C-alpha cells in the first residue's frame, strides 16, 4: 500500500458538498455515554419521586392503626432525607460538563471515572436504603400478625423471622442494585475501558 498516494487522494477528496447547519439552536447531543446516563437518571428520578409519594401516603391508603403513624412517619422522614441527599448529589454531579477538549487519554479517563463514580454513588444509595427496607418489612410483619411478635419474643421463631428479613433485604438489595447498575451503566464504563486499554504501550 502506498500511503503517500492515499494521503494525497485523502487531502484532495472533494468535501465541498458537505453542508453544515445554518443555526446551532436545534442541534443537540443524543448518543454520548454521559448523555444516555443523564437520560436514564432523569427517568429514575421521576420513578423515585413517585415511590416516595406512594410510601408517604401508604398509611392512609391501607388504613394503618393510628398508633403506627408516629413511628412510620419518623422512619419515612429519615428515608426521605436519605433519598433527597443522594438524588440531589446525583443531579449536581451530572449538571457539570464533560470535557472533550483534553487529549484523548485524559478525556477518556475523565469520562470513565465519572461513570464509575456515578455507579458507586448509585450503589451506596441502594445500600443506604437497606435499613429502611428491613424496618418496613418488620413493621409489616408486626402489623399483619401482632400476636406472632408478642408470643414469640422469648423463643427462636421471632429471631428466625428477623434473620430471614435481614438476609432477604441484604441479598435482594445487593443483587438488585448490582444488576441494575451494571446493566444500565456498566456497559458504558466497559466500552470506554476497552478504548483506554487500546492506548496502552504494547
Amino acid at each position, binding site marked *: *500500500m*502506498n*500511503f503517500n*498516494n*492515499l*494521503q494525497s*487522494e*485523502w*487531502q*484532495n*477528496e*472533494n*468535501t465541498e*458538498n*458537505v453542508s*453544515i*447547519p*445554518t*443555526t*446551532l439552536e436545534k*442541534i*443537540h*447531543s*443524543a*448518543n*454520548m*455515554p454521559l448523555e*444516555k446516563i443523564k437520560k436514564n437518571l432523569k427517568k429514575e428520578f421521576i420513578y423515585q419521586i413517585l415511590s416516595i409519594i406512594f410510601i408517604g401516603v401508604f398509611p392512609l391508603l391501607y388504613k394503618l392503626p393510628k398508633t403506627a403513624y408516629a413511628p412510620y412517619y419518623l422512619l419515612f422522614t429519615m428515608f426521605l432525607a436519605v433519598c433527597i441527599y443522594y438524588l440531589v448529589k446525583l443531579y449536581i454531579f451530572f449538571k457539570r*460538563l464533560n*470535557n*472533550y*477538549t*483534553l*487529549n*484523548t*487519554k*485524559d*478525556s*477518556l479517563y475523565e*469520562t470513565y471515572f465519572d461513570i464509575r463514580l456515578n455507579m458507586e454513588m448509585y450503589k451506596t444509595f441502594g445500600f443506604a436504603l437497606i435499613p429502611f427496607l428491613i424496618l418496613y418489612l418488620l413493621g409489616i410483619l408486626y402489623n399483619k400478625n401482632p400476636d406472632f411478635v408478642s408470643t414469640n419474643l422469648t423463643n427462636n421463631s421471632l429471631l428466625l423471622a428477623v434473620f430471614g428479613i435481614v438476609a432477604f433485604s441484604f441479598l435482594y438489595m445487593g443483587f438488585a442494585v448490582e444488576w441494575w447498575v451494571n446493566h444500565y451503566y456498566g456497559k*458504558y464504563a466497559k*466500552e*470506554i475501558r476497552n*478504548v483506554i486499554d*487500546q*492506548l496502552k*504501550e*504494547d
Partner: protein
Amino acid sequence: MKAKEQEFLIHLEQHKGMLHKVSKIYMDDKDDQQDLFQEIIYQLWKSHNEFKGNSQLSTWMYRVAINTSIVYLKKEKRKPEKFDSFPENIPEEENDSDEKESQLAHFYKAIQKLNKIEKAIIFYQLEGFSHKEIGNHLGISEGNARVKLNRAKDKLKTIIKSQGYEL
C-alpha cells in the same frame, strides 16, 4: 443570529471537510455519519468557550472531533455493521467515480475494521501530523504512537488485500 454563533459557523465552514472525514472513518452507515457529524458540531459549539487560544483553532477542533467520535454510541435502532453493503453508503458521486475515488472507497471500507484508536492514528497521519503530534493528541508517547501507527498501517494493508484490492 448572535455574532459569536456567526463566527463559529464561519470556522465550521472552513473545517467541515475534516469533520466530515472523521465521521466517515468512524461510521460506515450514511445516517450514522450524519448523526456523528452533528454530534461533533454540538460538542464543538458547547465547548468553544473553553478554547483559550493557546493552540490553533484547527488543532483544538481535531481533538474534540476525535474524542467525540471515540466515545460516540451508534444509534441502536439501526442495523448492525454490514461491511458488504458499504459501497451503497458512499455518496452517489463517489460510486461513479474514477480510480482515485475508488481507492478511497476501499480505504473507507477497510478502516471500519480497525479499532477506535487505530482509526484516530490513521486519521492524524493522513492529515499530516507527525508522530510527536499524534502522541500529544492521544496522550501517549511518540514511540508508542509510531509503533501503533505502523501496526495500524499493516492491519489496513492486510484488510484491503483481503478485499481483493491493492492501493
